[in-house]
């Protein structure tokens, strides 16, 4: 990356060197840069070298000048700009906006997507997952025996670690806290190669079933909950009600695959048990041996899995329907945000192009205004080199001021971006402005300044000189070439702004569709929270159910509360269960779906009413559906249609797993589909259990979600009531995820909102800049043609026809831009395809609204100058003649 930028800089710099000696110096400098680089120079030293080369190139182009001379030139340039504050302000502001937005987004892309993960030799790290091709499960977990086989037999890996994520209640120095946790095998930290900041990892003998509990803390948890106590190692803390010894603290920001865990505990796998091949709950991270490619490892993995049929028989696991695959850890972490971020980078690049086009226009207009000044200075003996130097200094001063403003804006907007970015945007905490980004910004700024700063110099030639002086400097003229170039700039910025407007329109429409997705329940007026009931305080299922009931009863009695229910999983985004489920009498054929249900949901009887989930057929759960009654279940419509197509599901029976120890449950009701895998994902199959019944049959999940329906008003007002209801009974229980269901729904679309907001922001900026650009050019054209218009009006042209003429001229240019923009958008919006939900990339509404908006902007930008044109006073114009 840095190398590429240096090369780009070298090309830019050598372009300044006079043509005759350009290739010689470029080659010589290239060799010297590589030698300096090879000698182990720091980034700062390389940067100094590059700046020096720019100085040398300028020296070759413009002749030698002392530092004092350049200083004088600089002061002159700054004074010149201050004399025209409006021009300087618009130019610097435009460049600053373009550069600032680019630096900020480039920093995010660099930090999130391009930079290697923060592990030593991170390119050697891969993530291993499984798939069940028949069931459409990709990126699925790995089972312990599969892990053990991979770890013991594969030669492609130096080491392989396993982890599984969960949550844990931590008793800190103050309130107990519910945090993200990960159970990891002792090999994992070693595989990642990151040393603990304090203490050590767990040892092999601590990672066995029944070992005394130990834990490694995140730097953040250590600071937050234990005040950064340097004596934390060796201390015993409360984890899920169990006394656990802290053995280490990881360095700040350490994370594994974006799990954001605050505590790591040993996985405690039993390496003597190889029977649970079907129990998939682990992710594996492997470090490839040096020189081993991902492809080689993948081949070895495939061979290994093919051998498993001998080990586990021909159950549902075989190489064809259950392959293991590996993907680079970097790809895993950033793969799915890359398209979105690259789209943003492209969008912001367009903004910069538009900004540059505007500044170019400004500089060219100013250059024409200065024809007289240039001619007089040239006539008084200022050499062409001297004049070039002056314009160049002005251009660079302008660009650098824009660059400085841009950097300031970038720092500010990065802070905003970090604050508003969705929680699931990986590595956003690692994002920072760095040297590469700054170099990039500086190069862009200076290139703009150098290129367009030189525009006025064209009037320093002898022919222009004579003509300008002859004209007496009362008017400046522009050649048809310059007019064409200016029109071209307006066309380009209109086209670019239109592409952005259409893109933003598509994202806004897609976001609208996403927000109107029917989740299957009514999120308004609901408050939710989560409790984890630790085995230490709630050893039996009865204890858990009692506590659950007490909380529900006490909350239900509160004023303002309409209903309270509990459930095991919180829609609309939860992780897949994919549990094997036996459907009684179901005959498995080649084409039939596998007997496996996507989501299990344990609920209390009031759940459906609380969430306003409709019953489609049959009935819901009743309080009498307990241990005394027959075991019952509810299913969603998708499940009923998949397994009982064309017939009623009521009365059919099913059971979790295929074990005879578990009784069959009778389906008594079919309920409306509820989104569980995200709003943009298809609804999976869902099976509902009644807590008081099934919890006693096979135990209840220790994590319980509660949902409180209010009688109207702000649900958050009930938060203190919730805390009191829980803590009055058990003050040691952390309450997590206490928020309204509307907030939960908002979080489910946060990434799309982030992307849509930014893209819409850039499109707005682009529209504004395009409007300023068109307005500027039109105003300038009118002022250029003031004499002509004046004469026209003097000989009887109507104000309205003059207005029409000026408007037509401007709109002709804008129309070309619009046509090109529509074509560009048509060609480019395919890139957005993977980011859109529920609408086509060629959505007619977006393709209609975008161009209309831009046309409106163009009409406004032309109308104001056109109106001004009709106010030209013919008398004044003719007097000047």
């Amino acid at each position, binding site marked *: 990356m840095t190398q590429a930028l240096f090369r780009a800089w070298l090309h830019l710099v050598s372009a300044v060197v006079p043509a005759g000696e350009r290739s*010689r*110096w470029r*080659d*010589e*400098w*290239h*060799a*010297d840069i*590589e*030698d*300096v680089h*090879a*000698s182990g120079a720091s980034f700062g030293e390389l940067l*100094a*070298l590059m*700046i*020096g*080369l*720019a*100085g*040398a190139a300028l*020296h*070759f182009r413009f002749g*030698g000048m002392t530092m004092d001379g350049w200083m004088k030139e600089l002061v002159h340039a700054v004074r010149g700009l201050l004399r025209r504050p409006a021009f300087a302000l618009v130019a610097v502001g435009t460049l600053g906006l373009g550069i600032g937005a680019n630096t900020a987004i480039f920093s995010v892309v660099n930090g999130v997507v391009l930079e290697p993960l923060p592990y030593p030799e991170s390119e050697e790290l891969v993530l291993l997952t499984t798939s069940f091709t028949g069931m459409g499960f990709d990126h699925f977990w790995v089972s312990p025996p599969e892990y053990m086989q991979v770890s013991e037999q594969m030669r492609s890996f130096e080491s392989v670690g396993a982890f599984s994520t969960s949550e844990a209640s931590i008793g800190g120095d103050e309130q107990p806290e519910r945090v993200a946790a990960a159970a990891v095998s002792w090999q994992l930290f070693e595989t990642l190669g990151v040393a603990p900041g304090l203490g050590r990892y767990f040892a092999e003998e601590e990672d066995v079933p029944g070992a005394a509990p130990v834990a490694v803390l995140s730097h953040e948890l250590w600071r937050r909950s234990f005040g950064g106590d340097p004596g934390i190692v060796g201390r015993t803390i409360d984890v899920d009600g169990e006394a656990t010894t802290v053995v280490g603290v990881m360095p700040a920001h350490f994370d594994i695959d974006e799990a954001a865990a605050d505590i790591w505990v040993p996985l405690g796998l039993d390496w003597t048990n190889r029977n649970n091949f079907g129990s998939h709950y682990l992710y594996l991270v492997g470090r490839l041996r040096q020189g081993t490619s991902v492809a080689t490892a993948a081949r070895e993995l495939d061979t290994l899995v093919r051998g498993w049929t001998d080990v586990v028989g021909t159950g549902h696991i075989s190489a064809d329907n259950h392959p293991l695959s590996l993907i680079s850890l970097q790809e895993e972490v950033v793969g799915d945000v890359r398209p979105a971020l690259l789209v943003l980078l492209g969008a912001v690049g367009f903004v910069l192009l538009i900004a540059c086009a505007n500044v170019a226009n400004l500089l060219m207009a100013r250059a024409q205004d200065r024809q007289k000044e240039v001619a007089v200075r040239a006539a008084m003996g200022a050499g062409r080199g001297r004049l070039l130097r002056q314009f160049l200094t002005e251009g660079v001063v302008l660009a650098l001021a824009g660059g400085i403003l841009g950097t300031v804006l970038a720092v500010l907007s990065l802070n905003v971006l970090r604050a508003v970015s969705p929680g699931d945007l990986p590595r956003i905490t690692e994002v920072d402005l760095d040297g590469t980004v700054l170099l990039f910004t500086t190069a862009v700024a200076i290139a703009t300044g150098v290129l367009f700063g030189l525009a006025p110099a064209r009037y320093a030639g002898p022919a222009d000189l004579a003509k300008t002086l002859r004209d007496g400097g009362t008017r400046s003229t522009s050649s048809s070439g310059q007019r064409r170039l200016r029109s071209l700039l307006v066309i380009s910025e209109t086209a670019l702004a239109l592409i952005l407007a259409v893109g933003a329109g598509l994202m806004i429409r897609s976001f609208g569709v996403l927000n109107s997705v029917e989740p299957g329940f009514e999120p308004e007026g609901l408050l939710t929270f989560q409790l984890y009931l630790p085995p230490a305080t709630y050893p039996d299922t009865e204890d858990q159910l009692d506590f659950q009931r007490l909380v529900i009863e006490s909350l239900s009695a509160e004023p303002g509360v309409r209903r309270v229910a509990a459930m095991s999983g919180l829609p609309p985004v939860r992780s897949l269960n994919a549990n094997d489920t036996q459907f009684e009498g179901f005959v498995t054929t080649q084409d039939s779906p596998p007997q496996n249900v996507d989501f299990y949901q344990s609920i209390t009887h009031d759940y459906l009413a609380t969430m306003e989930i409709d019953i489609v057929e049959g009935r819901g759960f009743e309080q009498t559906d307990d241990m005394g009654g027959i075991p019952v279940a509810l299913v969603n419509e998708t499940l009923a249609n998949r397994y009982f197509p064309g017939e009623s599901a009521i009365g059919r029976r099913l059971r979790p797993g295929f074990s005879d120890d578990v009784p069959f449950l009778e389906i008594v009701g079919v309920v409306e589909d509820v989104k569980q895998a995200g709003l943009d994902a298809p609804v999976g199959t869902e099976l509902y259990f009644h807590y008081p019944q099934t919890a006693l049959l096979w135990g209840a999940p220790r994590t319980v979600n509660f949902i409180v329906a209010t009688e109207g008003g702000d649900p958050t007002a009930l938060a203190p009531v919730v805390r009191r209801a829980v803590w009055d009974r058990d003050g040691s229980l952390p309450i997590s995820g206490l928020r309204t269901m509307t907030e939960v729904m908002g979080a489910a679309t946060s990434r799309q909102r982030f992307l849509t907001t930014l893209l819409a922001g850039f499109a707005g900026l682009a529209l504004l800049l395009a409007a300023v650009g068109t307005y500027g050019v039109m105003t300038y054209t009118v002022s250029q043609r003031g004499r002509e218009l004046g004469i026209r009006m003097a000989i009887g042209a109507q104000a309205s026809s003059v207005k029409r003429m000026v408007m037509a001229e401007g709109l002709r240019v804008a129309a070309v831009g619009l046509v090109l923009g529509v074509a560009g958008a048509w060609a480019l919006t395919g890139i957005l395809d993977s980011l859109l939900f529920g609408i086509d990339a060629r959505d007619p509404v977006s393709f209609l609204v975008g161009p209309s908006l831009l046309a409106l902007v163009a009409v406004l930008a032309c109308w104001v100058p056109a109106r001004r044109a009709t106010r030209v006073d013919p008398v004044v114009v003719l007097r000047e003649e």
Partner: protein
Amino acid sequence: MTHATALILQALATDHRHGFQIMEVTGLPSGTVYPVLRRLERETAVESEWEDAESASAAGRRQRRTYRLTTSGQLLAERARQRLANTRKLLSDGALGTAGPGMGGA
């Protein structure tokens, strides 16, 4: 002759023949070294040529440009050496230390 020119001539006289070597040994920035080399070459005090491609590719790097002093350049270098020797004497006598900035231009 500027101090920078004297330093560069002296570097060339002591067999530092490439741009990056001259920067390294003189501590002068690239923005000074290359313009001085270019001027000296135009004044025929130095001549330069590309090293042959074979030895560069044998060393696994790009071809370097090699500078060397001409006869007139060697005379200039001798003047530079004296000039630098004077400067060194001035510094070792502590002239700058006692006379202060006023002597800075010497």
